[in-house]
């Protein structure tokens, strides 16, 4: 037959092969985590304190710790990100200044996470004297997820149709009123997706908090600003490195499965909201 068609088919076949390999690798990862983590899961595992060097008990306070750091980072970061986006889009009219601001945020995105840990500890831990504490962790993670939130919100605000803005303006709304009435409601999607992605990023981060915000054992709920927490991420790291007992390694995989589930839920909701947005745009 036509050699061109043969070539075509062969290339597509190769593409399928490459894609298949890629998918296979990722499938292996997922099944590994599930297969190795599932045996650890139980009510006791989810709701009890870790005991005897991580080989007994559960990961209750690790989950709480991860949630605290995530939620805290989002709560600290959201108003700052939102405010700076609005300042940038509504008040900053000079293009070079806008560009500079954008560049700053982008460059923050390029900072390797471990550097946030180093510098963050220097500032929040040493200068503000919070030491190794959950507050240090929250602040470090808040800075870390700032670009994620900023970019999402910025995109949402920029994509508000111009006629909405003009309708608001033509009614004589001041910038503050315009934000409340038009921009915030219309950029809700961006705020939600950005925050969720930021949460997912914070949940998965280990390097920045491992020596600044977390402790290995003995931690329950922090009762003061200067106490560390324990998180799923660092628990996995410690168990993988320190445990003397195979049961502890099972617990590490179990904690990994829980962490993965958490991250997947956050990203799925983001995707769901975003797909709703796309459908609407096609309407």
């Amino acid at each position, binding site marked *: 037959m036509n050699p061109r068609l043969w070539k075509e088919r062969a290339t597509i076949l190769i593409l399928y092969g490459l894609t298949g390999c890629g998918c296979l690798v990722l499938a292996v990862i997922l099944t590994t985590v599930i297969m190795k983590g599932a045996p650890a899961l139980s009510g006791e595992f989810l709701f009890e304190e870790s005991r005897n060097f991580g080989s007994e008990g559960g990961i209750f306070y690790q989950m709480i710790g991860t949630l605290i750091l995530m939620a805290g980072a989002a709560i600290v970061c959201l108003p700052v990100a939102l405010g700076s986006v609005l300042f940038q889009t509504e008040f900053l*009219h000079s*293009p070079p200044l806008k560009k500079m601001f954008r560049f700053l945020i982008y460059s923050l995105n390029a900072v390797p996470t471990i550097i946030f840990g180093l510098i963050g500890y220097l500032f929040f831990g040493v200068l503000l004297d919070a030491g190794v504490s959950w507050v240090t962790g929250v602040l470090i993670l808040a800075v870390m997820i700032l670009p994620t939130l900023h970019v999402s919100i910025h995109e949402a605000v920029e994509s508000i149709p111009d*006629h*909405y803005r*003009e*309708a*608001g*303006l*033509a*009614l*004589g*709304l*001041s910038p503050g*009123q315009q934000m409340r*009435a*038009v921009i915030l*409601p*219309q950029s809700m999607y961006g705020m939600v997706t950005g925050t969720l992605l930021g949460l997912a990023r914070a949940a998965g981060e280990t390097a920045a908090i491992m020596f600044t915000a977390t402790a290995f054992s003995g931690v329950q709920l922090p009762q003061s600003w200067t106490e560390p927490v324990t998180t799923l991420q660092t628990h996995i790291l410690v168990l993988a490195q320190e445990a003397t007992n195979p049961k502890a390694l099972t617990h590490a995989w179990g904690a990994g499965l829980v962490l993965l589930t958490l991250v997947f839920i956050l990203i799925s909701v983001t995707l769901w909201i975003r797909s709703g947005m796309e459908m609407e745009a096609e309407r």
Partner: protein
Amino acid sequence: MTENVYAIQLENVRLSYSGKAVIDGASCAIRKNAVTAVVGPSGSGKSTLLRTLCRMNDRIPGFRAEGSVRVLGRDIHDPGINVYELRKRVGMVFQKPCVFPKSIYENVVFGLRFHASPNGENFSERAERALRDAFLWDEVKDRLDQPAHILSQGQQQRLAMARTLAVDPEILLMDEPTSALDSKSANAIEDLILSLKEHHTIVLVTHHVEQAERVAEDLICVDDQTVCHKPCQYP
């Protein structure tokens, strides 16, 4: 004295984007409580001129307005002017009907919420009045809490007018308000314009000379960077 007759007076106005003039040396005046139509070929700067009247072009980078633009007796580029108050008194309706993803009622009181005096005027009364003025009341009075998006394009445009009317502007600027509508809806809007001129000064940008002739008493022609009162050479 002239201020009692004219709502808007332009004197030697130059409008430009990044130094490129769209309108240069324009002088004209617009009468109170009358309908003035602005006509001209596309791209001639009709919209730019109209938008300048409530300073909607402020946020466009590189835009510059020079000369004197007096609206309701004051130069709108005076540093002391409150641009938000200006826009409240000079309402604007756009070519494409724009309703917010809210209920019909919320759309009507959208601007009102921010401009109402603190002694708590009755929103629903003013909303009803605005909707009646916009000839929309009978069509929507039973479904005020439904999303505004279910309305037809023509109804949405009248809703946008009701929203503008609700804040009680003295001047209404309309930027081709019927061009996105079918002829039946367009007729309804034209009727509406005629009924509104009793209490409002209306400036209407339009493509259709016929429409201008139907509704307007005065005609302003924009072409080749200049502005002139009728008679107009524009076909």
